[in-house]
């Protein structure tokens, strides 16, 4: 089984997702059928533990949030490969496999589902090894099977993305989370990898395109071992509300909001763990993807000057809607609060510093507020 949510066959608008996580590379160092890779620097590539976990996390998010997707979930297909020795638990009955042929077949079926209705939402997610020369190439599980042309097991993703513009689905989201251990300089020749579909350069971009790419330079920048990659964590946080904005129907995450905030959210996620990350987005238009509850906003509340912090009693009180009042001795204070309006205050037991208060609007992705307490 690879279709975690089978195609419901509906001809109404649906969200159709294809999620791929390639951690096990059969023919690379440490793989099940490992052999020496001699072409270019392919021998530098190793097994990864993060991609299948990232793909499963993304798939789980889609299933969990399905009721709140603006366009109901119509199908979810997941292709995974797991590195030898990786103890990742797969869903019951799930058959792993993310070779190029499997990706090709799943892509074609997904493409057909997406093409059924112009209001469909197409979601493509890939996590695994990638590299870049004239375009970006994503490496499938059987990458390197052919020693003379290891690229036969890769996908030319930029050409594929451009080709997908011809699909009727007006909302097209591509999330590419690739670990790039081989630089273009190391590749003397252009990889001979093909796209999953041909493309016509005269086809205009889809009306609502969100293509977000992260290309970590090495495994350390990619994510924690046996954990979800930094980029996927950032993407899930964005979808859960860190990229949300309020509207007439409450809080909503739009494609444009993800594009606008994903870099900052990635910096928050990776930075907190001592990692780093960089991503680029290309968008046309903006359309709602998912409704969320009022998001949780990380807040840093501090006093100025800094030496006022240990002496301060800080309070955080909702105005109108929001969480209950909180109080704490000593700052700076890091808290997570529901988005909304608050009154922040600092008071002191002596007159070394001046008591201060301010109205604060807590909105995602994060806010920092300093209370002026100079005597």
């Amino acid at each position, binding site marked *: 089984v690879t279709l975690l949510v089978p195609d419901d066959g509906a001809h109404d608008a649906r969200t159709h997702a294809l999620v791929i996580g390639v951690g096990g590379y059969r023919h690379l160092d440490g793989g099940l059928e490992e052999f020496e890779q001699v072409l270019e620097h392919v021998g530098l590539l190793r097994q990864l533990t993060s991609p299948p976990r990232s793909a499963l996390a993304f798939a789980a998010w889609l299933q969990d949030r399905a009721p709140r997707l603006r366009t109901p979930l119509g199908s979810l297909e997941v292709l995974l490969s797991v590195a030898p020795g990786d103890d990742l638990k797969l869903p019951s009955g799930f058959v792993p496999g993310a070779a190029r042929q499997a990706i090709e077949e799943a892509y074609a079926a997904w493409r057909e589902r997406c093409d059924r209705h112009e209001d469909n939402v197409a979601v493509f997610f890939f996590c695994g090894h990638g590299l*870049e*020369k*004239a*375009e970006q190439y994503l490496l499938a599980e059987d990458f390197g099977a052919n020693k003379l042309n290891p690229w036969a097991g890769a996908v030319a993703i*930029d*050409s594929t993305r*451009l080709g997908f513009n011809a699909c009727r689905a007006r909302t097209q989201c591509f999330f590419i989370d690739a670990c790039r251990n081989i*630089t*273009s*300089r190391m590749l003397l020749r252009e990889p001979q990898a093909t*796209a999953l579909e*041909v*493309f*016509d*350069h*005269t086809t*205009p*971009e889809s*009306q609502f395109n*969100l293509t977000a*790419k992260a290309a970590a*330079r090495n495994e350390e920048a990619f994510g924690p071992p046996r954990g979800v990659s930094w980029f996927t964590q950032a993407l899930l946080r964005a979808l859960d509300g860190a990229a949300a904005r*309020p*509207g*007439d129907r409450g*809080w909503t995450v*739009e494609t*444009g909001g*993800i*594009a*606008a*905030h994903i*870099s900052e959210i990635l*910096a928050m996620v*990776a*930075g907190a763990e*001592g*990692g*780093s990350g*960089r*991503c*680029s*987005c*290309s*968008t*046309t*238009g*903006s359309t709602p993807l998912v409704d969320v509850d*009022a998001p949780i906003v990380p807040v840093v509340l501090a006093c100025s000057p800094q030496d006022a912090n240990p002496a301060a009693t800080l309070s955080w009180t909702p*105005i*109108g*809607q929001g969480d209950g009042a909180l109080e704490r001795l000593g700052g700076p204070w890091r808290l997570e609060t529901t*988005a*909304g*309006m608050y*009154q922040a205050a600092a008071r002191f037991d002596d007159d070394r510093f001046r008591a201060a208060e301010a*109205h*604060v*609007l807590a*909105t995602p992705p994060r806010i920092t507020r300093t209370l002026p307490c100079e005597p």
Partner: protein
Amino acid sequence: MTGRLRLELQSHGNESAGIPVRVEVMDPAMRPVAAVWGQTPGQVDLSLEAGLYAVRVAVASGRNVALVARVNDEEDTTLPVPLYDLSPHEGHEWAYFTQPMARPSHRTLADQPYEGAWLRLWQHEDEGWRPMPIPEADVERLSGGADGITYRFRPPANRPCLLQTGGAQVPWRCTALPPADGIFVMIKPAETGADYPLDVVVSSGNWRVQTLLSLLRRGDTAGARDWDREARIAEKMLFSKMADPTAAAVGGYFLLRIRDFARLRNWANNLANWIGWMADGPIIHAWQLFAQADGDPERREALTAQARARLLEASARGFPLYTEGLRLLRDGLLGLHRTAKSEDREVEAALIRVAEYLSAADPSLPTTTFLAVAPERPDEEPRMGLPDDAEPMMFVYDVPFQEIVRQGLIPPGSRLVDLGETVEAVMEEDGTLRLDDGRAFHGQGELEVGAAAGEAEIPVAWKIPSLGAWLDDAADVLRSRSFSRIPEAREDRGDALPAGEA
């Protein structure tokens, strides 16, 4: 039951005046109530029903100030909006307001990664790219603290120019400069762990254009549309292409992004024809042609051939000013390459060339920025260190004392005393500042870091009694204009240093 809410949009920087800001007002349930544009510094007046409101004032960089306001019936309420809080320094406001870049860093330019960090300008001439001298008259340091430096450069008009940065631990990187009377540049330390150790921000200072560009780069197409509706900016920019071709290019990219090909009219064609040094015009025109190439096969073939010629033309001109153009150039060439089944050698060569730039580029920045030893040599893993001796450059913040000695600004053997005249030192031949207690320093950054770390008695300010000048005056000479490095110490020592107040 209404009252007036007056928002005072407060900023302090001279350069940041007139930057557009987006004001959003929401009710306590965070439902939108009003949305308008204002500018810094300035006022926005809103008539609202009495009640409590959330107010968010956002700049194009994505930063915002969020406040709460209570509006009372038939009363005027004034709410100061301290936009200056978004920048750590008033001289940096324009950059923090308009550019999607990292937050203020905990590091300073005095820290070790920035030892001997330098910059230089390149210009494109008939023979190709070459580093250009920057006379003192053509560069103005607007602010110069260890948290970041801002400049205004005046490069030659109507030819491609680049800013290159590098250092002992800073990879050499080029940033395309929009031709303008005065180009604003800010260089500051990047956050720890960032891909590149310096944040380099450039702008033509046309804040209306910069706002559109930044919104587009951040993927905020809805915000860009809204700003365009407010200012009708895209057409104005394209219409005035001769006066400001880079603004016209931004307008063109915007209209492509929102697929409003009708508003592009024939301006993209004219931009490509009239501004021969700029690669962006042909790229925009090529994509306009692609968009029109549907339907009739003959027409499609003809338009595709024209678009191909435009993309090759763009590639021959070098690289576009804007990152958006770099991506469109690659995508267009990639399409032609695939359609021709890899048999169009001209297209393939152009594609490989643009891919080299893309691989070395930072796609998150609005202006084309790529790691490179020289503009025509993009490289993902470029060199670090100082440029060749003969090539003009200037230091960003830390100045190695060795260069001060080599440039003859301080003669070797000079005695230096600290501000309180309690500590003495000597400048040695190799650029070592040796304190009388034996401790040695090799640059201003090292002195500052040592002093900040609380090491005993490390003065930062030193005067040179024999020259009647300060050590920092000598450093400032090499920060304020470009110079060529000198392999050996000069004979005419001390003559180049303007006397200070010491």
